[in-house]
C-alpha cells in the first residue's frame, strides 16, 4: 500500500495552519512573571504533589499580602502541571512548561526519579529548577541550574543508621527497598554503609516495585533471618501496606524509614501496624519555632489539617525563588526586565535567568519554616533532620540530628 499524501494537499495546509496558531501562543506579551510547578497531583503518591501545590499557594498568598502579589512591579503567576507520579510524564510536562509556557523557573518534584527525569530539560534550557524535597544526591548533580531545599540521602541514611544503632541499640537489620525508585535504592546504600560502619549487620535485603500489592513473600524471607528491625526506604503508599502485612505475618519488630513516609495518608493506610515505627523527616509540627508556628496557623486556616514537611519545603522553595527575584530587581533592574513574559525567548531573558540562577545559588541563612537554608557549592541545603516516632497512631517528635 502506498500513502497518497500528494493527493490531499488540504491536509497539509490544515496541519501547517494549526502549527502556526500554536507556536503563536508562546510569549503571551503580557508583563508578568510566570513560574512553573510540577508534581504528582494524581498517581501512586498524590499527597506529594498536593502538598507541594499547597505550599507554593501559601507563599503566593503571602506575596499577595506583602506586595499585592507583585515583584518589581510585575505580577507573579504560577502554572501547575500534574505528572501523574510518572517520570516519563514529568519530563513531558516540564518540557511543556519550559518551551511552551516559557517559565522563568520551575519548582518540583518530590520523588527523586521524577526530579531526575525533568532536571536535564531545565538545565538544557537554562531555567533554574528548585526541587523542594528530592533527597537523592544525583538530582543536583545534573547541572548548575538545579537546586534543592532539603538535606540529601547520605546524611539522611546516616541519621537513621545512628538512630537504629545508638538510640535503639540494634545490631541486626533487614532492608526492604523499592528497586524502581532512585530515592529508595540510594537511601538503602547510604543507610547500610553507615550502619555497617558503626558495627551493625544487614541480615537481609529484599526488594519490591512501586505499585505492588503483595509483599508477603519478601516479608516471609525477611522473617526467616530474624532481624531486630526492618528499614523500608520507600514511599508512604507501599509502606502502609508493608506494615500491615508484616504484622499479619507475625513480624513485630520496629519499622524504620526516611522522609518518603511523610504524608497524612501514611497512618490512614498503615493504621495500628505502624505503632513503634520511626522515620527521618525535615520538620516536626510540634517544634515551637515561631516561623513554623505561624506557617502552621496559616496552613490550617486555608487547607484544614496540619501541613506535612513536603508542604513546608515547597513553601520555602517558592520563597527562596521570590526573594532571589526581588534581589535581582534591586541589584539589576535592567536584567530583571528580561524575566517578564514579553521577553520570552529573547537574549535578555537568557541573561535574566542566568543572573537569577546566580542569586539563588548564593542563598545564605534564609529563614525558612523547615530551618535556615544555606546552599552549598553543590546547590544542596545543609539542614538538621528530625526523627519522628509513631506512637498510638500519632507522629511524635523524637530527636534532632545536626549535620
Amino acid at each position, binding site marked *: 500500500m502506498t500513502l497518497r499524501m500528494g493527493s490531499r494537499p488540504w491536509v497539509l495546509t490544515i496541519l501547517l495552519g494549526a502549527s502556526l496558531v500554536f507556536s503563536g501562543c508562546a510569549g503571551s506579551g503580557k508583563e508578568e512573571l510566570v513560574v512553573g510547578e510540577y508534581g504528582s497531583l494524581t498517581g501512586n503518591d498524590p499527597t506529594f504533589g498536593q502538598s507541594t501545590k499547597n505550599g507554593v499557594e501559601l507563599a503566593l498568598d503571602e506575596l499577595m499580602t506583602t506586595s499585592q502579589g507583585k515583584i518589581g512591579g510585575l505580577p507573579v503567576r504560577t502554572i501547575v502541571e500534574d505528572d501523574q507520579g510518572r517520570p516519563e510524564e514529568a519530563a513531558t510536562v516540564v518540557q511543556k512548561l519550559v518551551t511552551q509556557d516559557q517559565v522563568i523557573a520551575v519548582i518540583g518534584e518530590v520523588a527523586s526519579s521524577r526530579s531526575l527525569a525533568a532536571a536535564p530539560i531545565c538545565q538544557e534550557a537554562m531555567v533554574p529548577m528548585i526541587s523542594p524535597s528530592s533527597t537523592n544526591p544525583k538530582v543536583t548533580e545534573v547541572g548548575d541550574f538545579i537546586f534543592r531545599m532539603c538535606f540529601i540521602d547520605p546524611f539522611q541514611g546516616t541519621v537513621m543508621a545512628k538512630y537504629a544503632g545508638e538510640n535503639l541499640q540494634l545490631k541486626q537489620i533487614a532492608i526492604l527497598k523499592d528497586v524502581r525508585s532512585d530515592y529508595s535504592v540510594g537511601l538503602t546504600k547510604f543507610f547500610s554503609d553507615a550502619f555497617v560502619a558503626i558495627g551493625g549487620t544487614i541480615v537481609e535485603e529484599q526488594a519490591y516495585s512501586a505499585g505492588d500489592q503483595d509483599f508477603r513473600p519478601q516479608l516471609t524471607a525477611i522473617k526467616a533471618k530474624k532481624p531486630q528491625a526492618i528499614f523500608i526506604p520507600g514511599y508512604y503508599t507501599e509502606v502502609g501496606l508493608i506494615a*500491615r502485612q508484616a504484622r499479619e505475618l507475625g513480624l513485630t519488630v520496629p519499622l524504620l524509614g526516611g522522609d518518603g513516609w511523610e504524608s497524612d495518608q501514611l497512618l490512614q493506610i498503615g493504621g495500628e501496624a505502624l505503632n513503634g515505627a520511626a522515620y527521618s523527616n525535615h520538620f516536626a509540627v510540634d517544634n515551637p519555632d515561631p516561623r513554623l508556628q505561624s506557617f502552621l496557623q496559616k496552613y490550617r486556616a486555608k487547607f484544614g489539617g496540619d501541613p506535612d514537611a513536603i508542604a513546608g519545603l515547597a513553601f520555602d522553595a517558592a520563597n527562596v525563588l521570590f526573594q532571589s527575584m526581588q534581589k535581582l530587581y534591586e541589584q539589576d533592574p535592567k536584567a530583571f526586565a528580561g524575566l517578564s513574559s514579553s521577553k520570552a525567548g529573547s537574549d535578555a531573558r537568557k541573561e535574566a535567568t542566568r543572573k537569577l540562577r546566580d542569586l539563588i545559588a548564593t542563598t545564605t541563612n534564609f529563614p525558612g519554616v523547615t530551618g535556615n537554608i544555606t546552599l552549598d557549592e553543590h546547590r544542596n541545603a545543609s539542614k538538621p533532620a528530625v526523627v519522628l516516632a509513631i506512637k498510638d497512631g500519632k507522629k511524635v517528635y523524637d530527636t534532632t540530628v545536626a549535620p
Partner: protein
Amino acid sequence: MSEFLQQLVNGITWGSVYALIALGYTMVYGILRLINFAHGDIYMLGAFAAFYASRWIGAGTDPNPAKALLVFVIAMAACGAAGFLIERFAYKPVRKSSRLSALITAIGVSLLLENGGVLVFGAAPRFFPQIVTPHNISLGMGVNITNQQLIILAVSVLLMAALRFIVINTRVGKAMRAVSYNHTAAALMGISVDRIITFTFVLGSMLAAAAGMLVALQNPRIEPYMGIMPGLKAFVAAVLGGIGNIPGAVLGGLVMGIAEVMVVGYVSPTYRDAIAFVLLIIILLVRPAGLLGKHVAEKV
C-alpha cells in the same frame, strides 16, 4: 521449613485469586472462542463496587459479617450487570464478524473501562475499608494466616464448587456445554445460544467481581489500573491449565500463584512478573494444550 510453609500459604491464597479470575476467561473462551481482555477490568470494577457499597452501608465503621456479605452480594450483582451490558453492546454486534474483530473489541472495552475508571473514580489510589477486622491465626511451626486469607480461600473454593455444580448438574450448565461443542447444533436442539452466552458472561463477571473484592479486602489499595496485571496473569493461568477447561483454570491459577511467590521469596522480586510468562512458554513447549487441556485438531 517454616519459611517454606509460610510461602506456600502465601502462594495458595494469591493463586486462588488468579484461579477465580482465570475461570471467567476460560468459560468465555470455552463457549465463544473469545479472549475477553476486559475481564481483568471487571475485577477492578468489582473492587470499586464493593468500595462504594461498603461506604454506602457503612460496613467499614462497624464491621460485621452480615454487612460484609451484603457488600459482597452488591459487588457481584453490579459486575454481573456490567458483564451483561458489555456482552450486549460490545460483543454481540460483532459475533458474526471475524474472531479478530471480537478480540480488538475486547481490547477496546478493556481500555474504555480503565480510562472510564480514571474519569469516574479518579486516578489516585483509594483505601478499601476494613469490612472484616483482620486478626492472625497461627498454624504452628511459625506459620501465620489471617482470617482474611482464610476467607479468600474459603470463598474461592465455595465459588468454584458452585460453578462446577452449575456446569455439570443443571440444565443451564448442560446447555453451556452443548453450546461450547457446537453453536449450530445446540441451536438446532432448541437451545437459545444468545441467552447461554449472556449467562456465561454474567457468571464470569461475577467471579471476577468476587476476586476483586477479596483482594481489596486483603490489600486495601484499589485504583483503576489494578486489573491489568492480575488480568494478564490470570489469562496466562487459564492457558497454562488448558484454556476452555474449568479445573485447568483452577490448577493454572494455583501453579501461577505459588510459582510467583516462590520466585520472589527465593530468587528475586524483579522476576515476579517475568516468571508468569516463562512458565507459560515452558508448559506450552511440553504440553501445547495446557496442563489439563485436550489437544483438538483444528477444523480447516
